[in-house]
């Protein structure tokens, strides 16, 4: 029996691995997800075979819990608009972390964390799981714009954080010494179990304080980091429960979160530490308007329409954060179709951090109907610009800002790899104003009177107007 469950869990882990392997190509990805879900079903089924469930109390609680949670999960997964993906992932990550913390908590409560290995890993699981839970919930609130929007700072934040960490360490020591520490300092009221609850609470607070000072646009990195945390916590609880599906699955998730976090901060050209701890500092900065009214080549939809229709053969579209905000995917798709019906070649250049989370822009555009083989990433699109007649940049700035390559200036985007749109014949910006993007760095391309056309408008309306103009040109 023990061997059979072991094998079932091992098969589940193998299916997780196979599932992730298949995420390498869009063609196989969906079946990969199905395979991983199948692994989950095997793991759950195996569990039901090894436990004795009380049919009066246990069974309804488990069945009801799965049903309730499953329905909530499925309904939100079905209803969420694709632009709301970051907050949904944050929410699921949060409840996952919460689940892990609660499982570890009950191990302690039931006195099953007897060996030092079990108690240490269990404690670590509670702390990491709790941070992941409250941090993700804050991230969810920020992204859903329920609360804590922007960068929320308060005085002495770093000091408070340090004190909480210190407290957690002391309480943990007390728990692991079975209360001996508290007795030694004359606080016998601080039983191990009480210390555990306080630790749990402190970890929850720490998770909140960790995330609130970080701005909304950096949330994807935070979510990815918390995803890594939750994976690690799951792996740890795999140690305690001696469950290899948990151990292997959790480790894979931990690795995934770590890599994605690293890639994102790499694509942003900023080290991770700076992103997290600069939250507070950055909050002050914001828009320092140094307006000296420089001239730009302000054009109308008709100008763009006639240029596209008459003078261009190959068009590259670069969508950015503003496209997602304006929900302008459908008009963008229509523009593509219109251009193609006139025999133009249309490609899309997708920067790794365009949009609200990594790879998000791809999901948004495929949802609108753009075939994924038109979506080129950074390395593949850059050589294309040379023979491109027009680049249309919709609601993006940072990802095409040549200032990132300017070695003289030290800006927030210095060193970030960008889409080299300046190599194209013509550059067309569709955005509402001259205001810079998230990083707050002005774009010299705006002021290139010969190359650049600036079309100031909301992305959705603007794209519709351009499409009309192309048709009529």
């Amino acid at each position, binding site marked *: 029996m023990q061997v059979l469950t072991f094998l079932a869990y091992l098969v*589940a882990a193998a299916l*997780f*691995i196979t*599932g*992730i392997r298949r*995420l*390498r190509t*869009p063609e196989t*990805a969906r079946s990969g*997800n199905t395979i*991983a*879900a199948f692994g*989950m079903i095997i*793991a759950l089924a195996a*569990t039901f075979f090894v*436990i004795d469930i009380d049919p009066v109390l*246990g069974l309804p*609680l*488990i069945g009801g*819990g*799965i049903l*309730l949670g499953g329905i909530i*999960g*499925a309904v*939100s997964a079905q209803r*969420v608009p694709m632009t709301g993906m970051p907050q949904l*992932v944050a929410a*699921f990550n949060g*409840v*996952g972390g*919460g*689940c*892990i913390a*609660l499982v570890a*908590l*009950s191990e302690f409560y*039931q006195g099953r964390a007897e060996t030092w290995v079990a108690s240490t890993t269990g404690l670590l699981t509670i702390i990491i799981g709790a941070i992941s839970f409250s941090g993700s919930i804050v991230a969810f609130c920020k992204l859903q714009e329920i609360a804590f929007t922007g960068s929320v700072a308060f005085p002495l934040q770093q000091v408070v954080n340090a004190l909480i960490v210190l407290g957690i360490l002391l309480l943990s020591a007390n728990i692991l010494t079975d209360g001996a520490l508290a007795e030694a300092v004359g606080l016998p009221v601080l039983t191990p179990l009480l210390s555990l609850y306080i630790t749990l609470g402190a970890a929850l607070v720490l998770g909140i304080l960790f995330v609130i000072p970080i701005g909304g646009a950096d949330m994807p990195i935070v979510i*990815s980091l918390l*995803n890594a945390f*939750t994976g690690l916590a*799951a792996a740890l609880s*795999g140690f305690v*429960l*001696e*469950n290899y599906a948990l151990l292997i699955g959790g480790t*894979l998730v931990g*690795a*995934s979160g770590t*890599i994605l976090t690293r890639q994102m901060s790499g694509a942003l050209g900023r080290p991770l530490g700076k992103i997290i701890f600069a939250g507070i500092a950055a909050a002050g900065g914001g828009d320092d308007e140094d307006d000296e009214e420089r001239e730009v080549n302000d054009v109308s939809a008709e100008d763009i329409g006639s240029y596209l229709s008459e003078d261009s053969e190959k068009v590259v579209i670069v969508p950015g954060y503003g496209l997602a905000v304006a929900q302008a995917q459908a008009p963008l798709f229509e523009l593509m179709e219109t251009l193609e019906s006139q025999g133009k070649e249309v490609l899309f250049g*997708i920067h790794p951090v365009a949009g609200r*989370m990594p*790879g998000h822009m*791809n*999901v948004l555009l*495929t949802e609108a109907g753009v*075939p*994924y083989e038109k979506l*080129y*990433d950074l390395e593949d699109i850059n050589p*294309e610009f040379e023979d491109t007649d027009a680049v249309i940049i919709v609601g993006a700035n940072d990802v095409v800002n040549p200032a990132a390559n300017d070695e003289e200036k030290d800006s927030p985007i210095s060193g970030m790899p960008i889409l080299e749109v300046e190599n194209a014949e013509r550059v067309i910006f569709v955005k509402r104003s001259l205001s810079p993007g998230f990083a707050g760095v002005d774009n010299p391309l705006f002021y290139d009177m010969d190359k650049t056309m600036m079309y100031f408008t909301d992305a959705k309306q603007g794209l519709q107007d351009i499409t009309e103009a192309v048709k009529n040109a």
Partner: protein
Amino acid sequence: METLLAQVAIFVVAAYLGFELISRVPNMLHTPLMSATNAIHGIVLVGAIIVIATANDAFTLVVGFIAVVFGAMNVVGGFWVTNRMLGMFRPPNPRVKKRKG
């Protein structure tokens, strides 16, 4: 003790494997990847079920119940939304992407 050491070895090898696997997922699929791995850590639902099954007091039952609800949300929602996203990634017409690299 020996089992613990073996588990540490599994952890190390699985971590290497994870890095290899993930680093081969293209940027285009990073959002689905994030939500799929997110669903995978919902495997802790297994632990939550065991908590209820072995509970012998009301507190543990309540904790276990919340954990089961959380875990089920994570698993079901995670796989569901990933499936929904990836459903969009079907090429409308079977063209092969050609690039000049």
